[in-house]
């Protein structure tokens, strides 16, 4: 009897063990191909560039890359949804069960976590590897002082191969030209004019359905950062939602008095229902959703993908036409924006982990991606399938531009293996075609007239970083929360001053000193 019980228990336990462990093994099994002998196996953990199913085995571009670099790459993708990817990254790092390559970025924090973990030993320093084995990487990263500084960690090492952007115009202002016609106004140049336009959109029923259901202006958030797009209005008042440089002096934007003017303006817009009332919590993709439902008229967003909507939404909403307009001016009379794409993209790039047994082959593979051939593959895909050469320049085929499955350009490119968030160089030819005429015109105008320098990327000592970690999160929390309350009318914008006092109590002045010191160090180097 006892034996039977023990046997049964053992069997049950064994059964659950196999079931439990089996899953883990399957996940780690690399894709095998015929003739896999001699190929260097590499495992990659990467944030997905778009939320679509990908089977890297079938992607020609990557098959080519593997062929040319003699590697056998297996991919594990994680969703871009911020909470999920951060959590899974942490889980992975904590378990110590690392792949060979990791392509991770931290929201708008970029690569700070990578640099910290690198200095703790999770990632290997790349400078020497690059210098010895990777001519393309060396030329672009090591030999270019600006880029080299940008990717160097506080401890002096380079822990990731960056994703480089080709154009720095990123996001800007858009308005419905068709709605403007309906209400008989022209594109606003000042905050007052913007106000009038929004009121007209709200009351004039430009979508013609007899209901007052228009949401005049929307501004997408990114994760829990609701100021991500709306903050562009701050520039009208010479305010800034984050750190800002004024004549060599570092200042914290929300602590300045003009920030309260910005708050007063957006709270007025919110109170009069000119801004999306659910801006703080709206789920889904409000831009695509509300535009395709013909419910909104003004927004601040990414140039390329927004202008892309002219085609997509134009099918369902007759007359739909988005056009860009200049940043509105308010108390500050010159239109400008600090929002731009840095050359070293904060949302791309990859690192070699300490578990990689073939770092030399790995860096050579990464180097190939930076080579002219690699640039073509990772930007355009495979010749004949997703692009053809016209006058020596790659031009996308209809598989991309008019994707039969209805995918947008970006999504279909990702399906072809291009534009992944890894260490690659984006091509200007891609940008030129990715953005349709409207977007390109917008970007060029912004780059020409409105984009000014953004707050520089600083590096801090370990001691400074500790203090920043402790105090900055509190100050950021206070800023975001109290700004949100000011906007929805829970507190008066002028009372934000009390928040500034609280920030000072937390230690804002110390933070400013630290940032100033870091900036001075950087300025002295030049």
């Amino acid at each position, binding site marked *: 009897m006892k034996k039977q019980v023990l046997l049964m228990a053992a069997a049950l336990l064994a059964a659950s063990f196999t079931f439990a462990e089996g899953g883990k093994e399957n996940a780690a099994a690399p894709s095998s191909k015929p003739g896999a002998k001699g190929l260097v196996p590499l495992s990659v953990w990467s944030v997905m560039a778009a939320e679509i199913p990908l089977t890297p085995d079938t992607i020609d571009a990557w098959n080519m890359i593997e062929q040319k670099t003699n590697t056998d790459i297996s991919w594990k993708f994680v969703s871009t949804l911020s909470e999920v990817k951060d959590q899974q990254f942490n889980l992975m*790092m904590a378990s110590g069960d690392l792949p060979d390559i990791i392509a991770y970025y931290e929201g708008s924090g970029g690569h700070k976590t990578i640099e910290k973990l690198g200095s703790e030993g999770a990632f290997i320093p790349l400078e020497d590897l690059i210098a010895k084995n990777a001519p393309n990487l060396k030329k672009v990263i090591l030999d270019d002082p600006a880029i080299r500084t940008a990717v160097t960690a506080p401890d002096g090492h380079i822990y990731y191969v960056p994703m480089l952007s080709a154009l720095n115009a990123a996001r800007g202002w858009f308005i419905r030209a068709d709605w403007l016609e309906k209400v008989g106004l022209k594109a606003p140049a000042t905050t007052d004019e913007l106000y009038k336009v929004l009121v007209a959109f709200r009351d004039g029923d430009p979508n013609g359905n007899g209901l007052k259901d228009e949401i005049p202006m929307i501004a997408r958030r990114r994760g*829990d950062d609701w100021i991500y797009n709306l903050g562009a209005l701050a520039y009208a008042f010479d305010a800034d939602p984050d750190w800002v440089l004024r004549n060599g002096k570092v200042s914290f934007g929300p602590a300045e008095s003009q920030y309260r003017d910005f708050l007063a303006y957006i709270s007025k817009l919110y109170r009069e229902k000119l801004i999306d009332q659910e801006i703080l919590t709206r789920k889904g993709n409000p831009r695509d959703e509300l535009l395709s439902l013909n419910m909104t008229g003004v927004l601040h967003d990414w140039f390329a993908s927004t202008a892309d909507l002219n085609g997509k939404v134009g099918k369902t909403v007759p007359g739909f036409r988005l056009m860009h307009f200049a940043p509105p001016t308010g108390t500050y009379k010159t239109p400008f924006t600090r929002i731009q794409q840095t050359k070293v993209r904060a949302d791309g790039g990859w690192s070699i982990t300490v578990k990689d047994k073939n770092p030399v082959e790995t860096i050579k593979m990464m180097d190939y991606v930076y080579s002219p051939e690699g640039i073509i593959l990772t930007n355009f895909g495979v010749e004949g399938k997703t692009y053809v050469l016209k006058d020596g320049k790659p031009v996308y085929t209809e598989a991309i531009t008019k994707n039969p499955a209805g995918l947008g350009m970006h999504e279909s490119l990702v399906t072809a293996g291009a534009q992944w968030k890894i260490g690659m160089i984006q091509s200007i030819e891609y940008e030129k075609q990715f953005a349709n005429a409207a977007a390109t015109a917008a970007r060029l105008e912004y780059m020409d007239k409105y984009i000014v320098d953004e707050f520089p990327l600083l590096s801090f000592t370990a001691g400074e970083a500790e203090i920043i970690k*402790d105090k900055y999160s509190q100050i950021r929390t206070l800023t975001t929360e109290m700004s949100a309350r000011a906007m929805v009318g829970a507190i008066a914008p002028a009372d934000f001053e009390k928040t500034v006092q609280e920030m000072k109590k937390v230690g804002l002045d110390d933070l400013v000193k630290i940032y100033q010191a870091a900036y001075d160090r950087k300025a002295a180097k030049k």
Partner: protein
Amino acid sequence: MRIAEATKPYPRLRRKGRYADERALWIMLIPVVAYFVFFRYLPMAGVAIALKKFSPFLGFSDSPWNGLEYFRQFFASIYFPRVLRNTLVIGAYYLLFAFPAPVALALMLNSVASPPMKRTFQTITLLPHFVSFVVIAGLAVNMLSPRTGVVNLVIQALGGESVFFMQKQEYFKGIYTAIRIFKETGYEAIVYLAALSAIDPTLYEAAEVDGAGRMRKLVSITLPSLIPTIVLMFLVRIGNIVSVSFEEVLLLQNDVILETSEVISTYVYRRGLIGADYSYATAVGLFETVVALALVIGSNAIARRFRDAASLW
């Protein structure tokens, strides 16, 4: 035969008063002891992480010591007063509203004359307990949404303006408590119903003869008989108040109302598991344990003073 059996030696009974097969008993304990050692006591010891600058990459021994620094940081930060306040406020709301509700429900159910009706009511009120938090939280957010939620539709139908409930700081504790009542009242009432059914019916008969009315019976017989159970449940629950049904709060939070919805446990989760700030979060978690212990000890002491029989120990 019988005599032979009676004088058969008892080979397994070796020592007087002990079990012969005591070894088997010890063997039986192996799984549970192993489990407790690895997954209960080891983590308890692991709380020492709070005193280090722990990095999972460096491991426990290689991570540098940090003393009480993280405790100091927490107590000095803006988060300490707010998470403590939120936890206590939500706990207080629970005590005021969610704790008495099952008692009331039990009393009402108890006075239903027909057993099938009583069973039906009980079955229905029990349903929300079996539905998962995820579903209930999703439903709640949905029903409270400003443009499409039924609650707001009703408000608008009555002529009012739609309210963005989930975005209002001050409503969170009310919303959370209401949801908790919705979910758990039926289930928590079971205990009280059992206690009510255990009351000696002759007491009621005697009271009837003495001319007592319903109110009198309620006040003099029913309630006093329930008090031991009420106190017992109170003591059982009080330690948990501080953990405040953490999974439910987590599901109902959103970034806008974080200021009033962030309780100690969700803060530990956010800083520790999402933010990977392991040492700091462990320190905060330890703080919560101390608060919970204080509450349990304190309430037990009070209870003991008033009712000997009702104390847990």
